[in-house]
C-alpha cells in the first residue's frame, strides 16, 4: 500500500509537471493582458497536429522544435487581428471571444486532419520504461519532465533577466505606469501572448506522444490548467507551477482510494482553496476581484 501511495505521488508529480506547462502559458496571458484564454486548448491541439504533419519531413525532434514556433506565429496573428481589439474592455468580451475561438479551432482541426484519432509515434528509445520496478518512468515521461523543467527555467530567466521579461513583469503589476514610461504596451502584449501560445504548442506536441492525437485533446486538457492557476494563485507563475504539481499528485492519490473521484478531486481542491484563501496559495491579494 505504501509503495502504491509513493508510486502515485511520484507519478502525480510527472503528470502535474505537464499540467503546469499548459497552465504557465495561460497564466502569462492572464497576468499581463487580463485575457482568460479559453482557446489555449485549441492552440495546444493545433501544435500537436502541426507536429504530426511536419514529422514525415523533419522527424520527431524537428517537429518538436518547429511546431511550437508555428503555433506561436498563429497566436500572434490571432492576437493582432482579434484579441487586441478587446484589451481594456470588460474581461467578459475576451472570454466570449476565446470561448468561440476554442470551438472554431477544434472544428478547423477536425476539418483538416479528420475526426479520427491519429497515431503519433515517438522514438523507440523513449517509448519504454527505464526499469521494471519503476515501470511508469518511461524515457518519454522523464524527457517530458526535463523539458518542462528547462522551459520553466528559461521562462524565469527571460522574465528576470531580459528587458522584455522585466517589462512583462512590470506590466503585470502596473500596465499604465509602464506605458507612461514609454514602453510600447501593444508590442509587449503581443509578444507575451506569443510566448504563452508557444508554451501551449509545446505542451501539445508533448501530449501527442503520450496520448492519442484527437481534435478534442485540447479541450480535455485545458480544464486542469485553469484549476492549477486558481489553486496556485492568479498573478504568480511559481504559484501556477505549484498548483499544477499539487493537482497532479492529488489526482494520482485519489485513484488509490477512490478512483471515480480522480477528476472531481481537483475541482474539490479548487473549491477549498477558493473558500479558505480566495487569492490562491501564492497569489496576490486583490487579483481575483
Amino acid at each position: 500500500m505504501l509503495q502504491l501511495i509513493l508510486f502515485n505521488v511520484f507519478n502525480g508529480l510527472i503528470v502535474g509537471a505537464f499540467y503546469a506547462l499548459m497552465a504557465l502559458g495561460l497564466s502569462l496571458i492572464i497576468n499581463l493582458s487580463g485575457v482568460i484564454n479559453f482557446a489555449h486548448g485549441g492552440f495546444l491541439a493545433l501544435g500537436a497536429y502541426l507536429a504530426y504533419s511536419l514529422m514525415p519531413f523533419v522527424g520527431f525532434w524537428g517537429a518538436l522544435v518547429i511546431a511550437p514556433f508555428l503555433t506561436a506565429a498563429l497566436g500572434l496573428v490571432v492576437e493582432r487581428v482579434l484579441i487586441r481589439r478587446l484589451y481594456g474592455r470588460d474581461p467578459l468580451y475576451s472570454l466570449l471571444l476565446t470561448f468561440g475561438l476554442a470551438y472554431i479551432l477544434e472544428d478547423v482541426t477536425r476539418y483538416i486532419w479528420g475526426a479520427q484519432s491519429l497515431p503519433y509515434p515517438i522514438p523507440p528509445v523513449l517509448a519504454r520504461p527505464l526499469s521494471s520496478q519503476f515501470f511508469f518512468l518511461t524515457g518519454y515521461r522523464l524527457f517530458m519532465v526535463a523539458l518542462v523543467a528547462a522551459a520553466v527555467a528559461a521562462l524565469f530567466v527571460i522574465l528576470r533577466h531580459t528587458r522584455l521579461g522585466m517589462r512583462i513583469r512590470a506590466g503585470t503589476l502596473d500596465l499604465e505606469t509602464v506605458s507612461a514610461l514609454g514602453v510600447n504596451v501593444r508590442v509587449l502584449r503581443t509578444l507575451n501572448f506569443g510566448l504563452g501560445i508557444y508554451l501551449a504548442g509545446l505542451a501539445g506536441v508533448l501530449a501527442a506522444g503520450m496520448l492519442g492525437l484527437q481534435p478534442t485533446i485540447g479541450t480535455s486538457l485545458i480544464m486542469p490548467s485553469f484549476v492549477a492557476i486558481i489553486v496556485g494563485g492568479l498573478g504568480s507563475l511559481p504559484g501556477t507551477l505549484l498548483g499544477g504539481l499539487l493537482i497532479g499528485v492529488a489526482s494520482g492519490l485519489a485513484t488509490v482510494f477512490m478512483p471515480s473521484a480522480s477528476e472531481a478531486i481537483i475541482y474539490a481542491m479548487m473549491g477549498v482553496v477558493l473558500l479558505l484563501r480566495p487569492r490562491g496559495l501564492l497569489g496576490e491579494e486583490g487579483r481575483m476581484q
Partner: protein
Amino acid sequence: MSDTDRTSVGGRRTVLRAALALGAANLAPPFIRAARGEQPVLIGLDNPLTGTYAAVGKNELAGCELAVSQINAKGGILGRPAELRVEDSTSGDAGTAVQKARKLIERDKVDFLLGNVNSALGLAMAQVSNEKGILHIVPGGHTDAITGATCHWNVFRVCNATQMEANAAAQQLIEKAGRKWYYITPDYAFGHTLQAALEKAAEKLGGTKAGADLAPLGTTDFSSFLIKAQAANPDVIIFLPQGDDMINALKQAVQFGLDKRFHLAGAQQELESLEGLPPEARIGSWVFEWYWKQPGVPHVAEFVEAIRKKTGKVPTARTWFGFVSTWSCALAAQSAKSLDPVKMAKALGGMKLPPEVALVPDQAFYRAEDHQFVASLFVGSAQASGADPEDLFNVARVVRGIDVAGRIEDSPCKLVWPG
C-alpha cells in the same frame, strides 16, 4: 460625387436583391417536388458529429448515406425517394440530442429516427420517439436497457447489448489468458453494464475479479490506474473505456511495458481506436461487432469497395451499424406496405435481413420480443498490421449472435404496444 454615391448604393441594393432572390430560389425546389408527388420519405439521423464520438458518428453517417443511395437506386421507399436529414446531437449533451430529435420529428416530419452512439443520448431520444410514436433505430448505443428494462415497441437496436459482447469475450479470455481479471471501467452507464456483464460471464466460467476501478469519462492520464492495476497482479487487465479514452489507456499501458507482464484485453474494440494507436500498441484480445475482412461471406467485398470509394477507407462496425439501420427502415416500410409506425414495427420485429444488407456469416434478424438485432460477433486479437495496412484485427472465431444473446425469458423487456 453624389451621383457615384447613388450608383454605389443602387449597386448594393441590387446585390442585396439578387441575394434575396437566390435565397428564395433555394427554397423553391422542395415545393415544386412536392407538387410533382415525389415527396421524399425522410430518415432523421440525430448522432454525434462533434466531440469525443465524432469519428464513430461520422462513420455511421457514411453507412447511412450509402444505404440511402442504394435504396434510391432500387426504387426508393414505397416508390418515393428516401432522403437523409442529419443533425449533430453532440457527443454527450442529452438536452441537445433530445431537442434535435424533437426538431426532426415535429418540424421536418421525418418518418424514421436514427441515433445515438452514446447510450445515454440514445435512451433519452427513445423516450421522445416513443412519446411521438415514430419508428426509431439505435445504430450504435450498447447499454442493455435500450432493448432491456426500458425497451419500447417503436425502438430497435442494431449493435449488440453489452451482455452479448461480454458473453462472446469471456470464453476466449478464460481459455487463453487466465482467470484473474482486473477491470478499468469508464464511469457511465455503458461501462457499468459491460463490467457487470463480464463479471457475470466470467463467474460462470470460473473467473475471478482481482479488482476494478471506475475511470471518469474523458480521463486522459491513465497512469495512476495502471499503477494500481499492476499492483493487484492479475492475469488480465481488462480495458473497457471506448474511443479516445481507450486509445489513451492502451497507449500508456504499452509505453509502461505492461503488455509484457499481463494479458491486455477487453470486450469491445473498434477499428477507429486501433487506427488511432501506434502499431506497437495494437495488441490484446477483443470482440469486434463486425469486421470488413470476411472471406467467402457474400456481398461483404462489394460493401467494402463501395465504402472505400466513398470515404477512402474500409468500413468499420460503425459504418455497418449505419448501413443496416437505414436499410432496416426501407425493409420495414416495404414489408408493412405502409409508413404507419405500428405496422412497420410489427413487420420489423422478427424480420430476417437479406444477406446483401446483413453482411455477416450467420442469419441476422431482429428479435421480435425485444427488438434486438442478432447477427455475428468476431472474437480475436489486434495486430500491428496485416497484408492490408487497414487489416488491424485477426479474427480467431466468429460467434453466433444467438448463442450469446441470452434467453428471451430472462430479459426484463416487456413491449407495450399502443392501443
